[in-house]
């Protein structure tokens, strides 16, 4: 068992508003091994992004973070700003959903790239420029020289995301957290970006956390998947096992709610109700109000993650057999 690169234990995040605390992340245990690709799936309110923003200390002051996040053993929660600034970009890099608004509109692309290079590789002037050109090449941007002098608004979303990826690579990080990196992009561009990320991972051995609400995006690009719901981790398994034999009713529901591009058209399983608002999660299992097989103890006791198979954990009181779906439908995948 390899030593994890990042280990999250019991992470909680509360946001303070008008004197009250509302819980966005409710006790997450997660580990990322060096070089592995982990996918995090969840809908709105699942806490999937907040988890990693908290790990890097990027949340606003009104966020209260508890628990532990260790990078190679080093504690990141409540770490002094100087330490976090050393980690960001150099050990853990992060790219976000809307690339065009993640670049500073008043500075040229070259300026922003060189800023990262100066910071992480301590190069300057002509060396930095040459390196910037090489990076833009590496991420597949044609006409790189001209692009260095362009402003973000002159580039399309796809190109801007490539620039963001290039900037993330300057520090040669051990882990790249990609938060919905392709959601705002067109399908054909999405495929290009995911392909690029895969190639970079192969070349550098970098680990990746891919956060998305799109199960398909996650399925094709990662080894292991974690499913989050209302601030908790509900299931975690290798990709094939999760999509082929999900054991948590929520995961099963998500899979059954997905229309497919191939295979017979069947009526979608619609999970009734809605995701609970942050801070208003029900007692017991947060999915219980919407779960078709919930029992009385589900309403009162929050379930802990249990092993239900090799490397497969699910947080459910019931032991759902592999192949059986709580939604009484044939297996969703394929």
């Amino acid at each position: 068992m390899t030593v994890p690169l990042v280990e999250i234990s019991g992470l909680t995040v509360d946001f303070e508003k008008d004197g009250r605390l509302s819980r966005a992340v409710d006790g997450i245990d997660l580990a990322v091994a060096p070089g592995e690709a982990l996918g995090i799936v969840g809908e709105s309110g699942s806490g999937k992004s907040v988890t990693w923003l908290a790990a890097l200390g990027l949340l606003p002051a009104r966020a209260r973070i508890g628990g532990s996040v260790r990078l190679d053993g080093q504690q990141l929660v409540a770490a002094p700003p100087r330490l976090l600034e050393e980690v960001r970009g150099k050990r853990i890099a992060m790219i976000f959903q809307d690339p065009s608004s993640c670049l500073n509109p008043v500075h040229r692309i070259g300026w922003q790239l060189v800023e990262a290079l100066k910071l992480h590789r301590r190069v300057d002037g002509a060396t930095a420029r040459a390196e910037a050109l090489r990076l833009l090449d590496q991420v597949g941007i044609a006409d790189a020289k001209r692009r260095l002098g362009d402003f973000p608004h002159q580039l399309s979303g796809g190109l801007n995301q490539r620039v963001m990826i290039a900037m993330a690579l300057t520090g040669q990080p051990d882990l790249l957290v990609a938060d919905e990196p392709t959601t705002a992009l067109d399908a054909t561009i999405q495929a290009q970006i995911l392909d690029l990320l895969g190639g970079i991972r192969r070349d550098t051995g970098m680990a990746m956390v891919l956060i998305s609400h799109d199960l398909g995006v996650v399925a094709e690009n990662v080894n292991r998947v974690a499913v989050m719901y209302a601030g908790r981790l509900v299931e975690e398994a290798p990709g094939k096992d999760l999509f082929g034999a999900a054991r948590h009713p929520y995961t099963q529901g998500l899979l059954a709610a997905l229309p497919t591009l191939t295979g017979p058209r069947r009526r979608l399983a619609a999970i009734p109700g809605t995701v609970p608002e942050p801070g208003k999660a029900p007692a017991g299992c947060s999915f219980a109000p919407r779960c078709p097989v919930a029992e009385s103890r589900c309403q009162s006791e929050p379930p802990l993650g249990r092993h239900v198979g090799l490397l497969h954990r699910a947080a459910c009181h019931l032991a759902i057999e592999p192949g059986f779906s709580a939604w009484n439908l044939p297996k969703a995948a394929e």
Partner: protein
Amino acid sequence: MLQFAASRVLRAALTILFVMTFAFVVLRLSGDPALLIMSVDAPPEAIKAFRQAWGLDQPIWEQYVSYIAHAFTGDFGKSMRDGRPAIDLVMERVPATLAITLPALALKVGLGIPAGIYAALHRNSLADRLTMAMSVAGFTMPSFVLALLLVLVFAVNLGWLPASGADSPIYAVLPIVTLGASGAAIMARFTRSAMLEVLGQPYIRAASAKGVQWRRVVSHHALPNAAIPTVTIIGFMIGSLVAGAVVVESVFAWPGVGRLLVSAVANRDLAVVQAILMVIAAWMVAANFTVDMAYGWLDPRVRGTAAGH
């Protein structure tokens, strides 16, 4: 760029022309200058002579055309009080006005902007709330109330500063503070909201995520963006450098353009009033023009390029 500048210059010229016309018409409609200057019980022949001398007996549109035509040659008429060219009277007073409005502007910018930035960076702290409270007080209080309060405290009670007049630089202190205080308040509030807006943008978080130190995020990422809306306000303040001190000059008996305007209006000294308005308009227009150019320099999105090129 040339097309841009040319159209702006044309617009500026039209604005000034419009202001001059407007002033011309309104002044003529508001009462008979002859009666005002000549005093009520002057003999009718004297009044008639006065009218003839100043061309007031001619039809309005003829007066207008003559005025505009003369304006092109630099002749903006003569003061009815002392016969001197109106434009000379005005330009004599401009330095005095600038002597208080320029330092006031420095105060507004030098005090207001740092206060606003600090408040934004320390949101909801005591310093923030204090700054905001003072700024509300600053801009809700009319300038003459503030002026009189300051006079009461510093001139009457403490006797540190003179109440009015312009004999030496120390006389300028109270006028400058009055003008500067409320402007600084507006500047602080505005800068704070501009900064807060920018700090909430995704690129700020992305810069932090890159590993950039917070100090640098503020100075190199946030401030250049917050400068853009701030420049509008500064532009407006520059525009009112000549016109903005009317009340303050009156309260402190400061011999600037504002005071001249007040007395010229009271006396229906048409040419002088028109000349002052024209100078103010020209100055405002020039300030706006400079702001427009500054925008282009500060915000690359305004320079007119499309995405995907």
